[in-house]
Structure formats: C-alpha cells, structure tokens
C-alpha cells in the first residue's frame, strides 16, 4: 500500500486546518481539503482512492447528500461523517447511505485516527481481493471448454462417473481432464480449484 489519501470536506477553515495539522503530525497521510461538497464532487474523477472526512452541516450540499452522490458514482472511497449535533436518526441514515463511520464532534484524536485506519484497511482489503479475482480469472481463462465443464461438475460435487455420463465421455477421460485443470490452476485439491472458480465468479456464490 503506497499513499494514504485523506480528503477533508468542511466549510470551517479552522477545522480543516486543524485536521491537516493533526494528520501531518500523525504522519503517513496525504491530505487535501475542500470547503464544500460541490468542490469535492467536481474533482472526484481525478482523485485516487482514499478516505473522506465529511462534515454533515454545510451550506449548500449537506454531508448526507454528498455521501449519496459519492456512493452512486464511485465505490473507491471510504467516508467518515463528522457532525456537531449527532442523533441516532442521522447516524442510521448515514450508515444506510454507505458511510464507513460516524463521529460526533468534538471528538478524541484517537477516535478520528482509528476511524481512518479502519477505512484504509477496508480499502486495502478491497484492493487485495480485486487482485485475487484478477489472478483467478486469468487462470480459469486458460482452461479448455471440456476442462471447464468438468470443473463445474466438480463444483457441484458430482462423482467422476456422473460427470462422464453427463458429458457422454468415459470416466477415464474425466480423470485426465481433472488432472490437467488442477495442473493449470496450480492447485493440489479439488477444494482449492473450487475456491478459485468462486473467486473468478464463474459460478454464483449462492445457488439459484
């Protein structure tokens, strides 16, 4: 993980500066401040993924609206909502709209930094997951159609004989395909092969 981008969206200059100073002192963050929700959304496409510290009470677009638009257009950001007058109704609304966290001002420094850490962890996880899927997909793409059919049969937990019968080939041939595909996927057990198939998304996680 290279840079940790934090976007501060707040109409209060004193607060923006104090967050920047804090994160600078904490180290390891690249910060950028916006004085309104509109300014932030306008620059969205050019921004690397990161955490957004979003003030709820702002003139113009308020925090919740900015959050919803952000969720609709881009899933790369983790949003932490900050508010001076928190109540449960707003908190629930914020979480439903996809906020990663909800912090009431004035807050403890540790709480803010912890929330940021959580956000970046989710971003990291999401990136790791994305690369695993990428690998699995390229592996699956190397299989022949027959090998793929056999894999699907294995995923369904069918015995070699049943797969052979359904594909109208001999059980011996099924065993050869099975050995080839496990070799191509670089796995030693059927269970591992099934996990790669799931990761690549060739079968739905839930039956249906």
């Amino acid at each position, binding site marked *: 993980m290279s840079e940790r981008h934090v976007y501060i969206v707040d109409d209060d200059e004193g*607060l923006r500066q*104090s967050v920047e*100073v804090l994160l*600078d*002192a904490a180290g390891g963050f690249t910060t950028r401040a916006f004085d309104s929700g509109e300014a932030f959304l306008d620059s969205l496409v050019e921004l690397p993924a990161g955490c957004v510290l979003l003030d709820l009470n702002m003139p113009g677009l308020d925090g919740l609206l900015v959050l919803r638009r952000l969720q609709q257009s881009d899933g790369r950001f983790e949003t932490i909502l900050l508010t*001076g*007058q928190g109540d449960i109704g707003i908190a629930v609304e914020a979480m439903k709209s996809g906020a990663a966290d909800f912090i009431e001002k*004035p*807050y403890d*420094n540790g709480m803010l930094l912890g929330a940021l850490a959580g956000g970046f962890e989710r971003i990291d996880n999401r990136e790791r997951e994305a690369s695993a899927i990428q690998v699995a997909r390229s592996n699956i793409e190397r299989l022949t159609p027959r090998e793929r059919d056999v894999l699907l049969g294995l995923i369904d937990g069918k015995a070699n004989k049943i797969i052979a019968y359904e594909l109208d080939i001999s059980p011996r041939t099924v065993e050869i395909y099975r050995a080839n595909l496990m070799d191509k996927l670089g796995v030693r057990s059927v269970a591992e092969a099934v996990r790669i198939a799931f990761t690549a998304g060739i079968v739905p996680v839930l039956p249906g």
Partner: protein
Amino acid sequence: MINSLSDKPLPERGGHSTRAHDVKQSALIRRARARRTIDLTAVTAAGLTGSILAVQTGVAGIGPPHLRAWVIAATIAAAAACAWTWLRRSPVRLHVRRREWMDAVDLAPVMVVDDRNVIRHWSRGCEYIYGWSAAEALGRDRGKLLHTQIDEAEQLWPRLKADRRLDNDVSERHRDGRDLAIRQHVELFDQGEGQPAAIVSVTDVTELRRAEAALRLSEARLATAVSIQGIFIYEYDLIADRMIWATQGDERAESTANPGATLNPNLRRTLDQAIAAGRDRTHYDFAFTYADGREGLAEGWARIVRDRNGRAIRLLGTHLDVTERWQREQALRTGEAERRAILLTVPDAMFVCSDRGIIRACSASACRLFGYAEEDLIGRQVSDFIADGRPASAVRRELFRAFGRGAAATSPLRLDVRCESGKVIPVGFVVGTARRDGVRMVVVLGRDLRPAIASEERFHRMNNDLAQVSRLGMMGEMAGALAHELSQPLSAVVNFLGAAELMLSQGDRLQRERLRSTIDRASEQASRAGEIIRRLRAFILRGEADMRAERLADLVREAAALALFNANSFGVRLTYALEHEDRLVLGDRVQIQQVLVNLIRNAADAMAAHPGELRDLTISTRVTSDHLIEVAVRDTGPGIAPEILERLFNPFATTKREGLGFGLAISRRIVEAHGGQLSAINAPDGGAIFRFTLPVMDEEPVG
C-alpha cells in the same frame, strides 16, 4: 211705549213701504179734517218722531241688526213724508207749536237735493251723522261735500226718474274724514214750477256693516279651523235620503264621507242601527280612502233629530279625520310591543332608569341574573344592588358619573352585584342615555362577567403553557445551534492539541516552532468559542432592548396582573406601597416587566408551596437617592435556604422541579444592563425580599 202712542203694530221685516203708504193715507185724511185734527196730527207726528228716537236707542238691544236698520229706515221715511206733507199742504200757521214740532222732526236725518244734487234742506239729524251744519251744507253739491260713492247702475237721478223712489247703500264721508256706510231711502217729489227734488232719508249703518264684516270674518275663521282640523260637518235628511248641507272645500273632510248626495252605505247601516236602538246620539269609527288611495280612519259623532212621533227625520253629524292620531297610536303600540319584546329577549341584563338611577323597567334577563322578580327591581336604586364594599353614596357617585358619560365611555364599568341569594357576581355595565318627552332616561346593560373571566383565565393559562412550550422549543433550537457553533472551534482545538501531543511524543525530532504554532492555533480556536458565547449572550440580553421613559408604577401594576394570572396565585393577597407614582424610569418595558413577573411568580410559587400559610405579597417602590428608585417584592413564603442564597443568581440554581434556573440569572443581567442592582435577602420575620434598583429619569426628558 210705542204701542201707547201709536195704534200701529211694530212693522214686520220688509213691510216698510206698506207702512209708509199707510202713514201717507192717514195724513191725507187728517188734512181733510182740517184744523180740528191739527192738534191730533201734530201729536201723532211728534209721537212718531219720538218712536224714531226710541227705536234708534231702545230697539238697538233687540232683534238682528239688519232688522233694526229696516225699522229705523221705515220709521224715518214715514216721519219725513208726514212732516213734508204737513208743511206744504197745511196752510195753518201755529207758529209756536210749529217751531217746537219742527225742532222735533228736524232730528230725523233727512236732506233734500235738487236735480243737480245741490243740497236744499239739511236736517239736524244730518248734522249728527255727517258733522256738517245746515249753514255749511246748504247749497253745496252733495257728492262733493260728502264724497258720495255709488255704483254706476245706482245713480240717483236716472233711477229716481224711472221709479220715483229707491233704496240703496252708498259710501260717504264724515266731516272729520271717517268713512260712513249710509243706507238711503229716496223719494221724488215736485217742488212746483216743474222743479223736481229728492227727499233723501239717510241712516248711518257703518257700525252695522262693521259687525257684519266681523261676522263674515269669524265665519271664515271657523271654516278655516274646521278645514284645518279635518272636520266634516253635515246635515242629512233621513226621510228624503239626501244631504241637506255639508262643509265644503276640504279634500280631507270630504273624503271622510261619501262626496255624493247620499250617505256612504256602511255609514248608513251604522246609523240605522243607532236609530233602531232608539238612541239620539251615536259615535262611530270608520275607514275611508283618500283621493290618492291612502287608507284613512275617521271618527264620527251624530245627533239624531226625531219628530213628535219619535220618527228619525234628520241627522246632524261631524267627522274627524283621525288617521294621523291613529297612526301615531299604532306606532306607539308597536313601539311598546317592541320594547316588551326587547326586554323579554335581550341576553344582557337591561335596565331603563331615571337619571337618578331609579329602575323604571328591566329585562327578563335582569331578573334572572339578579334573582329578583321584576316588581322587586322596579322603583329601586341600581346602586342598591352593588356590593363591592364601598358605601352606597360612593357607588352612586360612580354610577352617576357613568350616566353622565353615557355611550362616550370606552370600557364597561365593572362592579360587583349582590344577587337575591346573597351571591356576589362581577358584572360589566354599559350605559346609554336617551331623552323621552324631555326626560333623560338611562339604559344600563349589565353582562355577567363570570364566563368572560373564566374564559380569559383559561386563555391566559393556555397562553402561558404555550409560551412555556415555545420557550422550551426555542431553547432546544438554540441549544442545537449553539452546539453546532461551538463544536466547530472545539473540534479544531482538540485536533490542534492532538497534533501537538503527537509532535511531543516524537521527542527526538521535536520541532519547537511547529509545536508552538499548533498550540497558538488551538488557543485561537478556543477564543473563537468564547466569542460565540459572548455574541449569543449579547443577542439574548441586549438585542431587542428598547429604552424609553416609563412610569414605574404602571409597569409594576401591569406586571403583577400578568404574573398573578395563574393557578398558583390563588389566594394571594397583593398590596402595593408605591411612592412617587409619577416618577419615570429609563428602561426597556418588556425586560423590566420580565424581571417583575419573574420575581412576583417566584414569590407566588414559594408561597403556594406552603399551603395553609398567610399569602401576602407586597410590592413597594421608594426613591433611595437622587438617581435611583428601588422596587421591593416581598412574600410570606418560607424564605431562601442559606445554601441556595449564595449561588441564587447563578444559572441552573433552582429549587423548583420544573425550573430551568435561568430566571434570576437573566433578571440580574437585565437589571445590571439597566444600570441597577438585584439582590435578595430573607426578611427577619420570615419570607424573602427581592430588591432591585433602576435609574430615575430626570423630570425633563432628555432630547
């Protein structure tokens, strides 16, 4: 006397010429009898002359005036003819006797004129009438001397030549200029030598004419009066069934009866009933229609005239147009009915009084409200029912003042009324005045104020609750705004200080300048938070201050009324001890009242918390120095606990469960903002005293 001297009976009206003829005949007989009869003739003539005088003086008292005139004229004519005959035809000269006789005859007003109207003979009677002596009149032209005026057709000589005699009226003039009405009888005779002359016997009928004119005038006046009154008088022949006579000329009067010859059939029926009942007089009303179609009403009286056998033959009646009177009565009856209806239905208690307050009439609602029967109220003084602790004379004075103001009063007079049951109820009185037949009447409307007071109390309570709720709502809103406003700088402070802490923890790489700048910025944000709070306080306390010169006594009274309009004030006895009521203070009316309301409510609440105790609330003002006036609110509650007393004016200090603890804190700020001080002590004999001072406004307002 007349009869004893003359065997002739008194002449009848209109019989003068016959009489003159008789006299002339008897004179001829006498002449034939010659001397022997002269004495007799003389005596007869003298008797006649005497009778003339007698008639002129004595007859004046009897008979109608025109009859009198004729008698006189006839007698004079006879006497004159007699005298002339005797003078011309009798050659006998009995000088002495003749002299006397002539003197007597000469009293008759007789003149002789020739055919050129020159006066040839002028009797002493003429002297009396005209004022000219014989010497002055003889030889003069009659017309010129006497200013004789006569109709063209009545000219003397043409008529005389045709008829040989005439009777007519002329207008002549007395020597002194008076106009005379003269009745003349003229006979033509021949003087001999073919010279005609006229013997003119005159009678002064001036007085007679004047009386006749007066009579005519009074008749005209009567007719006018009859017509003005709308009286119609008629005489009706019941046998022939026709109108004999009726007053004329008045449209109104004629309208009341059938203008035709016969009586209105309805009227006739009514009269026939009276006749059949054997009555001689009857009185009836009947409707009629005016010429213009309006309905009218007339009243009639009739006298029934009967013949010897009791048969009704004639009717004398009068009709009087009573339409206007009837309409007035109708209006009066309607007015009375309306008045009764109003008195029965008017919802407020209503009294009609004399201007001394004696009840003349009252409404049903008045009886209900006061609990008395109508007859128990009428005749009593309104003030008798007022029971507000003052002497009756004071109440009466106030009532009379209200009567004087009448409808000009702007607000109802509120007085307590004692009902028949002894219960005392508050009543608002409104007074109106009216003048009837020159007497001033007062209409007093009284309204039971209990429902109004109850609803007013309810309204106030609701208003208070509402104010409380909205105050709470406003506080919540303000708290929210305040939270947001303050959370920003406070968060920034936390952030800066957090950064500083992080910097310090990285001990080996400590950058002093960076750390100082961070701490400075934290301090800046903390100041900003403080500024926000100051701004807020300024807004709450001084944002709407409106300083004016106010009468402190008024503020106190209003605030007390406002503060004591709630449940806790029940049973509180309020006493004012206000010095210098006219002194003005400079302040914001609303804010000062807020302080007063707060102190008074606190006092009432403190006393209410201890039921059974005395609840005396005293508000006093006194001037403490040249510039300050002090207001003290004292209660008889439990006083202030010592531990509370210390922090009494701090926010959140309260002993009341529902209190916010802001009241006294705000009150103190308000008083201080006005340049005064608010303090509290426990009174030595129990209860609490809150005092505050305000600057006195100078007598001369500045600016």
